[in-house]
């Protein structure tokens, strides 16, 4: 339980990855790392597909990442219309961890450039919901 609080609209409530939400509460965006083989995962997961271990630990995604690509949406699926327009993006952090999310609306459109430095920060949404977004680093 708890995962239904993730994002603007959530489609999943039960997952073993729900500690992700507890970390968001503390202002931390976390992935997981396998204690057996050292494989890092984002999005986080409780099972390692590499060595089949389920002995994982949570690791904070921090520091500067680089923007790989993005797109600004003019149309949205049901439940997201109120946020339009918004930009989705993929950002690469250290250890080849790639994080998918939205660009902060604080970043002006003309400033957005592939390769720019970004950081990821937790955002509290109305109705006790939590998400994260990318800001200028």
């Amino acid at each position, binding site marked *: 339980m708890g995962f239904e609080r993730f*994002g603007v609209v*959530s489609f999943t409530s039960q997952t073993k990855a729900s500690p992700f939400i507890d970390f968001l509460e503390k202002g931390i965006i976390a992935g997981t790392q396998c204690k057996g083989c050292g494989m890092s995962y984002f999005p986080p997961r409780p099972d390692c597909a590499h060595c089949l271990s389920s002995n994982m630990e949570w690791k904070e995604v921090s520091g500067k990442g680089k923007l790989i*690509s993005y*797109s600004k949406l003019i149309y949205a699926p049901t439940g997201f219309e109120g946020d339009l327009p918004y930009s989705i993006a993929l950002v690469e952090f250290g250890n080849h961890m790639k994080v998918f999310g939205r660009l902060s609306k604080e970043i002006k459109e003309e400033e957005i450039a592939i390769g720019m430095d970004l950081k990821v920060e937790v955002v509290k949404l109305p109705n006790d919901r939590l998400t994260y977004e990318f800001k200028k680093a």
Partner: protein
Amino acid sequence: MKEVAIVGVGQTAFVRGYEGSIRELAFDAYKEAMLDAGLTAKQIDASIICSAPEYDKQRTPAGTLAEYLGLNPKPTFYLETVCSSSSSGLRVAYSLVKSGLHKTVLVLGFQKMSEISSADSQERMGRGSDVMWEAPFGTMMPAYYAMHARAHFQRYGSKEEDLALIRVKAATYGTINKKAVFQKGVTFEQVMTADVIASPLKRFDCCANADGASCLIVADKDVARSLSKKPVWILGLGAATAPITMSGRDSLTGLACAQEAAKEAYRMAGITPQDVDVAEVHDCFTIAEMMAYEDLGFAKPGEGKDLIQAKETYIGGKIPVNVDGGLLSKGHPIGATGGSQIRTVVLQLRGEAKEMQVKDPEVGLVHNIGGVGVYGNVSILGR
């Protein structure tokens, strides 16, 4: 390797708002394929029904369609890889025939996208990505392909103008395809000045939803040689997958599932990209066709733009691509799309493509992608 052939093809017109049920839609494509092959229902040993299930009120449509098409008591089952469902159907039909389990297998792809309201459709659109980690940000198919477009532009210097040229080509051939949902010509200026959907993709960079059905009949060499039409042989099949999450991908400048599938299909057929005379690629968005040129080896990575700028993918060019208008003009009724692409190539290889005919092709290729590069399918056919 002439052991398994396509002996019959059929396709309905792709339309907006088909006025009938899914069983009647399926019947139209089925009838055309059966008449094309010269077979009767008794000669069909099994059927594979392909579509994306979230559009249908009917649970387990395979049973309903098998009854309506008169295919009882032969076995039927349902297969889904979203937009590439009927190419996956061809792969399974091939293996059923090659194994000797069946002699003749029917692959029927259909989609009545207008079966649900546009509000329901909007809701489903949001769930096409990973529902735990990406859908909660408000994702849409065009935006994902748009991210690939931007990454491609950045790395290779391709431009929105290059994508517009792809749309103009699609429209050129859409005007001569009587089964296309979009038969109007489109100018370069119209493409460039259209409303943005998800930057940098604009309205004409995106294919349209449609209702439609396609049908393929796959048979072993004995059945194939006993029929009156020239069989079209399945020479190579490649299938591969890539992560549905963007986080799981090494690159956004091409589709890894297509590259893998192409490699496998070329190896099985024992040919190279230069041997392909005509191709159908999955142009759900203009950038998808650009990446397909490169993923299939028709151009080196980054040089797809040169191919379209020189009109080498038109009829008469080095490698004609989507000369039936592609998904961009035909429309994209999810489960029916792969079968429609395969039908086009079969007609080309038989010399029956009429106004769209490429000169005397011997080898044809079909590239059909499910999801945003999740399921890759490449099928190579020959005379």
